[in-house]
């Protein structure tokens, strides 16, 4: 009888392990990096962030830095995508620049997956879609992981109950997990936590390469009060305001706000205070990040449509993240980031005519809307 029980339980154990292996494949897929096409002749060099933060070498947080140098000297622009991996338009904007941009003067530094560890997991209980895909005209499929805003706890563990790092921000109570949030730990620490090492790498890159403008690409749910806002450090307000004004003239409903003096650890405050660069951050609207959304679906994540938020908008309950029946597709959100980057470069060039940043070959806003990312992303070179 006892042997029968043991045999039965061994069968249960094998069944459970089989379930874990089958479902584990989905989780382990998240650890496989998404390839980015390097066929663009505009790419001059690809380096790893560990060159600027040695403690990242060999870790899951080490990430690629794509450098696109123009033939003529000029200003230097850093595009950060994937600071929060679930904010997909930011990453896709960076990828579109990597795969299409030709720099005529100046230099672009692009980090498409700033928090690389964050791409290896999704947030528990949010039910966020883990992978999105685009079918290209040649039949190939480009897949991108969605991830979540924090470093994976299997890469950085444990979360202490209280932390006070170089950022000057006290992480305690409800902010304990923010020790794994890249956008709360600038300027970072070369010997700090894994996330702080990433922060330090970016901070060191900015100082070493003498970056002129930082563009940190984000998305936010409809409840966020500063959707479609460019948040600028005071050093960046003049260029940022000019850029936003130019987007307004093109019909985009963007606005600018100043970085809060107590926004410790955030890129626009901490990098603006601790480097010579002009630090900016832009938020596009992503209804999938809202807490009042309906069931997660492809229509929500890529189409940006959610009937709950349309109803909430119609009742006049939102101040900046309003949503219409047309939704806000991933194409439009990525295009918004592209436009904001472009106008920041133009505004910088206007204010610094001796150090222009001139980029060509980027699809226009209308190209993003009418042709879609399927026709802007490049096939992966073999």
């Amino acid at each position, binding site marked *: 009888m006892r042997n029968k029980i043991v045999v039965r339980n061994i069968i249960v154990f094998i069944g459970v392990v089989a379930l874990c292996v089958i479902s584990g494949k989905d989780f382990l897929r998240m650890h496989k990096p998404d390839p980015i096409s390097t066929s663009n002749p505009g790419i001059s060099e690809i380096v790893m962030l560990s060159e600027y933060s040695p403690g990242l070498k060999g870790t899951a947080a080490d990430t690629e830095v794509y450098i696109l140098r123009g033939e003529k000297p000029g200003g230097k622009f850093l595009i950060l995508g994937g600071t929060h991996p679930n904010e997909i338009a930011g990453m896709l904007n960076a990828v579109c620049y990597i795969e299409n941009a030709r720099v005529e003067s100046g230099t672009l530094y692009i980090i498409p997956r700033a928090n690389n560890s964050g791409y290896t997991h999704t947030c528990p209980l949010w039910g966020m879609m883990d992978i999105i895909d685009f079918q290209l005209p040649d039949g190939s499929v480009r897949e991108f992981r969605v991830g979540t805003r924090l470093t994976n706890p299997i890469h950085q563990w444990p979360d202490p109950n209280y932390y006070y790092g170089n950022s000057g921000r006290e992480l305690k109570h409800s902010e304990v997990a923010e020790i794994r949030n890249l956008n709360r730990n600038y300027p970072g620490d070369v010997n700090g936590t894994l996330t702080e090492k990433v922060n330090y790498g970016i901070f060191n890159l900015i100082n070493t390469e003498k970056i002129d403008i930082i563009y940190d690409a984000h998305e936010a749910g409809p409840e966020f009060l500063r959707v479609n806002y460019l948040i600028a450090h005071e050093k960046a307000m003049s260029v940022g*305001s000019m850029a936003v004004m130019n987007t307004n003239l093109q019909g985009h409903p963007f606005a600018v706000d100043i970085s809060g003096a107590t926004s410790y650890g955030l890129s626009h405050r901490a990098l603006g205070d601790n480097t010579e660069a002009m630090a900016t951050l832009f938020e596009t609207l992503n209804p999938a990040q809202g807490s009042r959304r309906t069931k997660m679906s492809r229509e929500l994540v890529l189409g940006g449509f959610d009937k709950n938020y349309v109803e909430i908008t119609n009742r006049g309950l939102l101040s900046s993240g309003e949503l219409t029946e047309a939704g*806000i*597709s991933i194409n439009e959100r990525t295009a918004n980031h592209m436009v904001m980057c472009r106008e920041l470069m133009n505004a910088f060039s206007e204010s610094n005519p001796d150090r222009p940043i001139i980029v060509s070959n980027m699809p226009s806003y209308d190209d993003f809307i009418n042709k879609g*990312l399927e026709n802007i992303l490049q096939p992966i070179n073999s």
Partner: protein
Amino acid sequence: MKRNKIVSILLLVAMTFSIVLTGCGDKKTTEAPTSSPGPTTQETSATNEQSGKATRYTSKETPFVTLNGELKKYESPFYLTSVGQSADVSMLDALMKKVGAEYTYNATAKASDLKDVKTVIIATGASSKGLGAAGISAEDEKARASELLEYCKENDITVIMAHLGGVSRRGKLSDEFADMVLEYSSGIVMVEDGNDDGKFTDFASRKNIPITLINTIADCIEPLKIIVGK
């Protein structure tokens, strides 16, 4: 015992069923949903007497309208400053550059900075972030504004109030700053969204000063060209 087992099994089935129901959609590669159209244009609000909202004058077709008089050229030299330290003063600075105006800009200007100035354009709107970045409190800002405005009155400097933040720059502190500047203003330029309750049009009517309402902040370019004589 048997009943407990049945209850446990039913609970397990119910939990499994609920997990299946809340799972993600399928990952089959299909065409992405149709992209949404280009930038949405601002629709003209219809007049709604029942809601108590002010009449809407501007629209995409009518980007700016001046009530209670004409928008005219003001005398230079021009000075641009802020009361409230909102980001709107930076946007106004960008607009003035776009227009090619000659002016001096200082968001935290003191009364003594206005020597020899003939017209000062004040962007109003409270921002705790802006005040924090400037290192001043709301009370300090009110004191600075009061001194600045009194200086303008004593030295015949024309004050034009610019309220470009729309409805997001309406609130207790923003309105306090706006009220201070209104008392000294000879003209108002504002995004019409910020006048939903008719506060500014009513004031302009009472004081008989021109008020230029604009549809969006980008529509401020033409009125500014007139003001600075470009």
